[in-house]
């Protein structure tokens, strides 16, 4: 067998005594689509940075085309044919498409004078190479995420990249856009470009990759042809333990009661129309639909952030007006927002500050000041109940891992003692181990009588946890699946993603 086109050998890297990478190997053949998968903190990003010349490895070497290239600078890595597309894409919103695509080329040429014609030509050619068309003079800031991604890829192409590394490339793309991205990756493959696809979305990994390398705790724990793995096996290798997903069983006992929440003909122009459903005690109701289908808008509307134009909301049989989050909380409704970092947490503040922020009023002492002992006890109580791993609740939230941060958001809303808990993307950006814990917490809450609405892109998550599913398309409920035991992930995925064409026909 010939030498692989790209390989890293025995790479180790420590940061202040913590071993981020421990003697890892990775090889990629020419034109291969290789996937690197691992939980958060498993060393994926560190390896990318070593390959890209941003970190210097303590030991080990990087080879491309048989040449040893370790100890190089980022620009040398680019010259060697390695292009990294970071999660944030590194595009310039204030510059045009043409300039964004050509900027590496311009810098690489070493010329100090800008040649605008060359910039346009480079950009045009790069876009043509991957079969895309975007107006060259458009400002990148005006483009949707998927287009920005194409620009980042085009930029890589201008540099005759031999290996393109995509770090969590799909995290902000819709399913449709992901498909499109994959078609571009396949096109690059035809040209002999290798892709290292870093992700933790199983579905995508299985769809696109030929080989999968798995990292755990800074070590390479396996490298397999994709065909030899299935998601169960992969998650077992990734987490080092067998994570089995049994389904949530809803004990049909409460249907005769007055429902916790009834929504009747809720409509909002351009967002959703005639949304009607009921939610009973102990239910986990899934809402699925494409991004943009209106599912998030329905959730925010129930929480008073996006008032509906018409329709009725009943809480325990009583009609209520929900004009703002305060009224929602007063009616026992809580919302865990989609965007954890932006809307769910004060990242710089302490865990306890975050947890008690929704219930400050109840912590007031007679003097009108906050009772600090009570505050601390409440926070500690929640931290213990949700098993938040931290030495102290006075640590900043940003010091926690994604999974633990999400538990803080959960705690914050659970502290309001809601009857109805709406979870929008409860495990976005959370690795598989923590995901399982969060699912367990959610199920326990439901079993204790809370009504839960779960919105998610992840079909498997919905299937595993929900006893009933509403399928939303273009702002309408197009289907209700009452018995989730009778449907598997593939069917549901088809229902969600093919709904568009089905509707049109």
């Amino acid at each position, binding site marked *: 067998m010939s030498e692989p086109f790209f390989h890293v050998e025995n790479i180790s890297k420590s940061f202040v005594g913590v071993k981020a990478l421990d003697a890892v190997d990775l090889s990629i053949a020419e034109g291969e689509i290789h996937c690197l998968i691992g939980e958060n903190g498993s060393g994926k990003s560190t390896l990318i940075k070593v390959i890209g010349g941003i970190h210097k490895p303590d030991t080990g070497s990087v080879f491309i085309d048989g040449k040893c290239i370790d100890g190089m600078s*980022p*620009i040398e890595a*680019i010259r060697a044919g390695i292009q990294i597309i*970071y999660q*944030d*894409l*590194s*595009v*310039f*919103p*204030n*510059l*045009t498409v*043409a*300039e964004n695509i050509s*900027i*590496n080329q*311009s*810098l*690489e040429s070493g*010329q*100090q*004078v*800008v040649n*605008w014609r060359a*910039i*346009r030509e480079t950009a045009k050619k790069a876009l043509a190479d991957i079969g895309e068309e975007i*107006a*060259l*003079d*458009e*400002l990148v*800031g*005006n*483009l*949707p995420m*998927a*287009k920005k991604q194409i620009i980042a890829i085009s*930029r890589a192409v201008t540099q005759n990249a031999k290996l393109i590394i995509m770090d969590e490339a799909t995290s902000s793309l*819709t399913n*449709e856009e992901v498909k499109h991205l994959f078609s571009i990756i396949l096109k690059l493959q035809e040209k002999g470009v290798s892709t290292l696809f870093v992700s933790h979305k199983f579905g995508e990994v299985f769809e696109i990759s030929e080989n999968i390398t798995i990292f755990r705790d800074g070590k390479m724990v396996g490298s397999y042809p994709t065909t030899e793995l299935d998601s169960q096996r992969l998650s077992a290798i990734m987490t080092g333990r067998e994570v089995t997903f049994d389904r949530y069983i809803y004990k049909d006992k409460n249907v005769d009661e007055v429902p916790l929440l009834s929504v009747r003909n809720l409509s909002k122009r*351009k*967002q959703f129309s005639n949304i009607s459903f009921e939610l009973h005690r102990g239910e986990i109701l899934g809402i699925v639909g*494409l*991004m*943009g*289908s*209106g599912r*998030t*808008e329905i959730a925010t509307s129930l929480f008073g952030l996006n008032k509906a134009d018409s329709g009725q909301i009943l809480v325990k049989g009583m009609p209520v007006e929900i004009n703002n989050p305060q009224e929602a909380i007063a009616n026992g409704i809580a919302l865990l927002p989609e965007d954890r970092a932006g809307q769910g947490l004060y990242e710089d503040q302490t865990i306890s500050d975050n947890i008690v922020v929704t219930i400050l009023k109840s912590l007031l002492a007679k003097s009108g000041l906050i009772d600090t002992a009570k505050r601390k006890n409440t926070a500690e109580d929640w931290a213990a109940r949700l098993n938040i791993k931290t030495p102290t609740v006075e640590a900043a939230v940003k010091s926690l891992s994604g999974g633990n941060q999400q538990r803080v958001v959960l705690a914050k809303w659970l502290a309001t003692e809601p009857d109805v808990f709406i979870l929008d993307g409860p495990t976005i950006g959370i690795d598989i181990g923590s995901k399982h814990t969060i699912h367990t917490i959610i199920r326990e809450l439901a079993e204790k009588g809370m009504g839960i609405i779960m919105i998610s892109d992840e079909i498997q998550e919905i299937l595993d946890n929900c006893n009933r599913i509403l399928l939303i398309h*273009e*702002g309408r409920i197009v289907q209700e699946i009452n018995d989730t035991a009778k449907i598997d992930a593939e069917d549901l995925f088809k229902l969600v993603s093919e709904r*568009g064409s089905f509707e049109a026909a």
Partner: protein
Amino acid sequence: MNIKNLIKKQEIQLLIFVLIFSTMITIISPAFLTLENLFDLLRGSSGVAILAIGIFLVLLSGGIDVSSTTIAIAGQYIAINVMMAMGVNNIWFAFAISISVGISLGAINAIFISILNLPTLIVTLGTSSLFHGALLEFVGTRSINSGNLPRAIKEFGKYKILVLERANGSEYGLSVFFLIMVLVVILTWLILRYTMIGRGIYAIGGNQDAAERVGFKVKKIKLFVYCYAGFLAGIMGVMHVALIRSANPQYLVGSELSIIAAVVLGGTRISGGVGTISGTMIGVILITVLEKNLVLLGLSSYWQKFFVGLIIVMGVIITYGDLSRKKRDENSSAKAIEPSSQVNSASQVNKGDVL
């Protein structure tokens, strides 16, 4: 509708406002719309415009500079003092000294900002006080009035590149200040549009992390930006003393905010990355016309502050109000119904226009 067009629009709006205001002044005081008055206006505002261009560059790179007026006055006052001490009577010498001081002080800003990576507002607030204190302590506090100024300075202030005759036979004309300003505008435009450093300034202002990753030498570019701003401040310092024929280390300091306001009013985004020289120039014209001519409307000069403030607030409402409305619209329409056909407003934008 996109950001760039909006700014274009803002420039046009400003221009229209300037025209309306000028027409008003002309109606009330016909003396306003004479070539002579226009020449006067240009002479009086060229220096401010040059300082504004330095600030514009700093804002573009994502920073802010409140020390430029101090740097200008330091350059000026040191130059005049050195000239008098050495008995040199040469305008080029004045420029050489003032510019050297400007670049040096700009470099000090740059060291704090680019090497030590400190926030620009705090650094320039600090250095402006530091520079000014040092100037007053080590160079002096004495005001040097017209009688004692080197002759070359006064001659430079009167030098005209175009001389016209009034009806009564006396002369007036277009000051050399205007020429200097035009040269600075052209030079800066060329740098921004046609050099990698210039594009780097836009890139850093747009996304500094990305600029670093694609291989811009961010530290070098920032060093350039602050030195260039110091260079321009040095030029302005000499023009300023030639204009008012008196060198006083207390002058100018304190007027930096209205210059920054002029730049922002001209459409330069305070967070960096977006802005044009033409917008900056219109902003300066607007502020100058307001400053010089409210009196012609019969208003006390105190109104000037009031109106400048009012216009800035209105300008911000127009630009940022439009932006946030646009964002809201996009969000609701994109999220609402069509995920696939996300709005791609392919409008005719100019390729990273600088002017």
